[in-house]
């Protein structure tokens, strides 16, 4: 039987900031989505002050000032690079690895001896911390859903101290009782609210709930959830999303495009079509590549360039994909060239199942937070309001703006912004 480990970076964005600014250790820190000023990452010190995930920070102005909370705008370049490093370290431990989000990976650790699992988890934790500076927690269990429960408890329990092996069913009752139903992977707030009405408030009660009832109310995903909580794996590791086919949308222009707006429009429509294809096939993409090309029959002025951007989390969301494509385009665009062809590739394709179809909750806070963070990156790259159409409904007035507008340097991705040492 498979044993899963999930490695989850602790307060990931905050931890990234701390690696290069160690003075922030032990201090309260918030990272905002730049677009609407919501907290997308909080240090433990901030969590204790009761500032919620996704809470608009301008409403917390007094708390922030009173406690001297350090507030950062999202630094997408930094988080993406640090995420890549963490995955690289993990892949040295297990090739059977699924990058689930910017700060979480699943590993197949079936081959680790049962009595060595906790030690293995500690080694993972220590190695990632030493190599990258990022603290992680590790949860291990026979299903992905149980491993998520394990990692949540690993963070909370002083005894577990960051690593919890939940493969032994004897520990399940207690662990599941300690897990509010809202915190079960794939149960959104809407279902959580509904379940509580029926007296199902924690994961144990959900596991032991009447199957027919759950099936009727939540469909097949509900019964899968019950199975996963019982230790019967329904969601295998998605090992090689990148080896699946890629999606390409490109076209040659009848007339060379000189007008930059025209090129942006073309790339926007290709990216939108690519995102539609993803959704149709229930896939997500991890990388967006944009390419542009001038007339190949005019070698003296031939220009071809491409740029690949990593999405904050695998997605099929149009604004995210369009935004990434446009941000890439902005980097490679040469204003004086005559373009004959442009296109996008979507790669690192993975199934949308866990991210989207199982998401009962249409308003998943974590995901929408991530969405905002990548929109920010785009607006940063392309200039303000590039994506206002997508974000207009979120917070049109942006009352926080200018209040906490601090992005840390791109410490690891730009020569002119390297950390300085005395």
């Amino acid at each position, binding site marked *: 039987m498979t044993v899963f480990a999930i490695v989850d970076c602790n307060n990931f964005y905050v931890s990234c900031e701390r690696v*290069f*600014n*160690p*003075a*922030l*250790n032990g201090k309260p820190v918030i990272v905002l989505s730049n677009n609407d000023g919501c907290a997308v990452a909080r240090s433990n010190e901030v969590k204790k002050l009761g500032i919620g995930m996704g809470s608009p920070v301008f409403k917390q102005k007094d708390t922030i000032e009173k406690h001297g909370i350090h507030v950062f705008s999202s630094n997408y370049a930094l988080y993406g690079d640090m995420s890549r*490093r*963490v995955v*690289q*370290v993990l892949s040295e431990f297990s090739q059977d690895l699924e990058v689930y989000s910017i700060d979480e990976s699943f590993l197949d650790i079936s081959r680790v001896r049962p009595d060595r699992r906790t030690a293995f988890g500690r080694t993972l934790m220590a190695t990632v911390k*030493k*190599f*990258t*500076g990022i603290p992680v927690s590790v949860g291990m269990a026979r299903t992905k859903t149980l491993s998520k429960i394990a990692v949540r408890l690993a963070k909370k329990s002083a005894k577990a101290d960051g690593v919890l092996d939940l493969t032994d069913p004897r520990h399940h009752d207690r662990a599941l009782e300690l897990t509010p139903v809202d915190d079960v992977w794939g149960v959104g707030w809407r279902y959580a609210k509904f379940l509580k009405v029926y007296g199902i408030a924690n994961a144990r009660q959900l596991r032991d709930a009447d199957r027919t009832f759950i099936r009727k109310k939540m469909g097949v995903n509900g019964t899968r959830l019950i199975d996963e909580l019982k230790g019967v794996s329904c969601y295998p590791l998605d090992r090689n999303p990148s080896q699946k086919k890629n999606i390409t949308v490109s076209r040659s222009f009848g007339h060379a495009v000189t007008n930059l707006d025209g090129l942006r429009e073309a790339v926007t429509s290709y990216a939108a079509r690519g995102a539609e294809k993803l959704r149709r096939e229930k896939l997500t993409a991890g990388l967006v590549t944009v390419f542009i090309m001038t007339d190949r029959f005019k070698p003296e002025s031939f220009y071809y360039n491409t740029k690949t951007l990593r999405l904050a989390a695998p997605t099929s969301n149009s604004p995210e994909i369009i935004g990434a494509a446009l941000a890439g385009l902005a980097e490679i665009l040469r204003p004086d060239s005559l373009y004959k062809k442009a296109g996008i590739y979507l790669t690192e394709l993975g199934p949308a199942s866990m991210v989207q179809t199982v998401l009962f909750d249409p308003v998943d806070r974590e995901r929408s937070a991530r969405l905002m963070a990548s929109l920010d990156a785009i607006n940063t790259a392309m200039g303000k309001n590039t994506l206002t159409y997508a974000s207009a409904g979120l917070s049109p007035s942006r009352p926080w703006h200018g209040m906490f507008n601090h992005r840390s340097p791109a*410490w*690891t991705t730009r*020569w002119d912004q*390297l*950390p*300085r*040492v*005395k």
Partner: protein
Amino acid sequence: MARKGKTLSGIWKAGEEHLQVAAQVGRPIFFSRVQAGFPSPADDYVEGRLDLNAHLVRHPAATFFVRVAGDSMINAGIRPDDILVVDRSLDAADRRVVIAVIDGELTVKRLRMQNGRISLMAENPDYPDIEIQPSMAFEIWGVVTHVIHAF
């Protein structure tokens, strides 16, 4: 060993022996460590291009670049505005040049560990050595493996 030709640029192994990039007109460029005990068989033939990244960065996931902001390590060949290659995967040992965190700040110094005492030594007589006290917030951030200096 392969130390013929003229030096193109100063890529120094921090504090200790330096590496030289030697070039000979019309022949491949060789890299060889001056102190190496054995001639590397890899020096005898060259496939494709030499990759400076592969040479300077042994552990990509754990390697970071930082910029030198002062002259406290000048006598170790680390000058202001140089770029240091820092490998976090290496264990800090006595006499290694390290990036340390002292009271929330990143600093480059030579680590000394003697008789159970830890100190950070500058390589410039104008700077005092720092003996680490238990009360100090101290941490080794990474080990410096190379310095890149632009002339």
